[in-house]
């Protein structure tokens, strides 16, 4: 199944892209998708301990599963305001 991954802010800078598409087997988790994104990005990047993830605009746990067509957002520490 196909997952769209978006990277933001410092994470996008370090990965060298803000948009990735990864292929994952059924039952794959958010963590699996992050690992795939690390493999597929133009530049090597490490997931910070404070990384948050959202699927289809809702925050999720790394152990949650993803589904075909999901948009997974990788969210480094936010700093709005």
């Amino acid at each position: 199944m196909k997952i769209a991954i978006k990277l933001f802010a410092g994470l996008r800078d370090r990965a060298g892209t803000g948009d990735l598409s990864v292929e994952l087997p059924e039952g794959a988790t958010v963590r699996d998708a992050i690992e795939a994104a690390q493999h597929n990005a133009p530049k090597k990047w490490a997931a910070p301990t404070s990384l948050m993830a959202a699927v289809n605009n809702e925050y999720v746990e790394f152990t949650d599963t993803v589904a075909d067509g999901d948009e997974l957002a990788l969210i480094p520490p936010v700093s709005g305001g």
Partner: protein
Amino acid sequence: MIIITDQPLEPNILTDAVRDDTDGAVITFEGVTRNHNDGRGVEYLEYEAYRPMADEKLQELIDEIKDRWEIDKVAIAHRIGRVDIGELSLVIAVSAAHRRPAFESTLHFIDRLKQVVPIWKKEYFEGGDVWVGDPDSKRASA
């Protein structure tokens, strides 16, 4: 009212949006780009938002404070893109029958915004820039 825009913010629009003859208290909070931070001079900021998730989270925060405090209306505007010194990055207006819930809920809203709303701030200073709050964002040479 939720506004995310790359244009200068107009606080009066938000304040006017929350006014009501039943309300005795109206607070307008402005977050302004300061000329210094962490002991160094700031040249300007740049904000980025993940939309529409940012809009949805702001709506959730409005619902959250309306559930928890006796307030009437809430309006919020966040600027994205480049924001110069003295310009507004954030405006929140809250109306309520009484002042205390207006103050408490507005402060809580900002605290929560800085935890859960996917908006990021890049600080440009002399000789570099940094994504604020990101431990892996190194001071880059300009």
